[in-house]
């Protein structure tokens, strides 16, 4: 452990921030830890915001906590919730908070996550245009969505699909709008997307693709009206935007620090150890733009990656060995569907293998007899086998993988 580090400030009670806090203590750090978050609800899980928080009205922020007050006490962490970072003075390793306080530490971890992106069009900031990023956002939507209400969900990614599916279950009239020709197709194999979309349509969702929206207005009889570039209009009680996120950047005044910290790709520039170019300043999670040794930059927005980066940044601060990078994995719960994906699905169809098993097919990407990606619906164990096959780099035979008569478990060890 670096002997000089006696205090750490973690900005953001996010998956990355909490993972860092836990790992610091697990790694033997005995100094002070201060956890700051602008959200008064503190550390809670975001995945439930588009699911249980909407569907089970009794769900409170307490029910979805990432870490409970008792554990924070046990870990001797000072939490300052509902207190935003207003300025980062990186050279002196100080944070200025909304409360007026200025705190300093030997190490500052920026785990501030992101904010939901809003469309750059007129009316995107109307009160009827909602996003889903914070607990308060979900509560606001929950209050509007009475059965029979009409809600337009904009965006063909996971948040859009999850929100549309949840609202349909609440007997809301859902108008799902996507700028692309097929929702989810930027994430999953096209044939699977078609089946998923069909499932959502059967559940009552109405889908319009290739949408071009020009503006939102709230001047007509309806709560809010969407105007399309082709002249069509759509009235709704509310609009939910699921059009991506933007990293939540700290306010920095001096140009030298800006230059060193702010990535042209968005986010905070860090190396693979998650250290910035300013000593004592680190970033983890959605906000971290990681420059690899081959000088490419990536920013991950998934839960597992945030969790892992929290552990990596703690190891960097402690001067201990970084944990092994897990195989890329994520999930999306859409109504009755639990979708999982491992590794990377290759876009080329020659690597795509379909296995007909159960109600939903499983897709694998196999290249040179090695598993590189997998996606399943309501069949997590198929992806769990694929994860192990990717990790252990074992022999993968396309014919056997496609054959439902040959169990996947039997193929797990090559």
């Amino acid at each position, binding site marked *: 452990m670096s002997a000089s580090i006696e205090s750490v400030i973690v900005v953001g009670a996010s998956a990355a921030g909490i*993972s860092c806090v836990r790992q610091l203590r697990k790694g033997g750090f005995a100094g002070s830890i201060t956890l700051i978050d602008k959200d008064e609800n503190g550390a809670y*899980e975001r995945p439930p915001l588009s699911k249980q928080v909407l569907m089970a009205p009794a769900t409170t922020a307490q029910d979805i906590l*990432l*870490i409970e007050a008792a*554990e924070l006490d046990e870990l001797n962490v000072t939490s300052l919730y509902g207190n935003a970072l207003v300025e980062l003075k990186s050279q002196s390793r100080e944070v200025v908070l909304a409360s007026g306080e200025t705190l300093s530490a030997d190490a500052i971890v920026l785990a501030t996550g992101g904010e939901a992106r809003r469309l750059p069009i007129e009316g995107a900031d109307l009160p009827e245009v909602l996003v889903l990023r914070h607990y308060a956002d979900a509560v606001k939507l929950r209050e509007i969505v009475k059965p029979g209400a009409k809600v337009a969900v904009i965006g063909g990614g996971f948040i859009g699909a999850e929100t549309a599916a949840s609202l349909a279950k609440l007997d809301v009239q859902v108008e799902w709008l996507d700028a692309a020709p097929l929702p989810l197709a930027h994430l999953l194999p096209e044939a699977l997307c078609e089946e998923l979309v069909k499932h959502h349509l059967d559940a009552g969702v109405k889908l319009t693709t290739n949408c071009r929206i020009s503006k939102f207005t709230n001047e007509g009889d309806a709560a809010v009206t969407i105007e399309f570039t082709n002249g069509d209009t759509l009235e709704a009680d509310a609009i939910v935007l699921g059009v991506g996120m933007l990293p939540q950047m700290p306010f920095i005044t001096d140009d030298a620090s800006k230059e060193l910290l702010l990535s042209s790709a968005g986010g905070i520039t860090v190396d693979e150890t998650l250290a910035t170019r300013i000593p004592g300043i680190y970033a983890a999670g959605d906000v971290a733009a990681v420059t690899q040794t081959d000088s490419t930059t990536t920013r991950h927005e998934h*839960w*597992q990656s945030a*969790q892992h980066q929290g552990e990596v940044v703690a190891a960097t601060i402690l001067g201990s060995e970084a944990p092994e990078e897990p195989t890329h*994995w994520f*999930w999306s*719960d859409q109504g009755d569907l*639990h979708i999982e994906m491992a590794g990377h699905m290759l876009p080329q169809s020659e690597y795509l293998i379909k296995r007909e098993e159960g109600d939903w097919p499983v897709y694998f990407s196999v290249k040179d007899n090695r598993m590189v990606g997998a996606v399943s619906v309501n069949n*997590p*164990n198929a992806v*769990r*086998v694929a994860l*192990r096959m990717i990790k252990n780099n074992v022999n993968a035979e396309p014919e056997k993988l496609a054959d439902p008569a040959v169990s996947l*478990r039997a193929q797990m060890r090559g």
Partner: protein
Amino acid sequence: MLFVCKLDDLEPGEAIKVDSVKPPIAVIRGESGEVYAIDDTCSHAEASFCDGFVEGDTVECPLHMSVFCLKTGEPENPPATKGVGTHIVSIRDGDIYIEVQR
């Protein structure tokens, strides 16, 4: 003591859900051959361990991949942070019985 099934009917890596007790219990045979009984519902979200992935003497939650030790019921990795209850298993004349510990 509650009869579950014959030992021969539960292969290593397989699970059977005991629904007659509430909340339900998962009787899972680890890859070592040992039989375990734990509360079936994950401590983190509404998921049944009987649908989980058994590896060694652990089960991985089918929703969010926390791995639980079948012997202790404790999670080895997040998102779950709390353990689940464990129950006593006995094998008599090739039959599996559990004793609910609640």
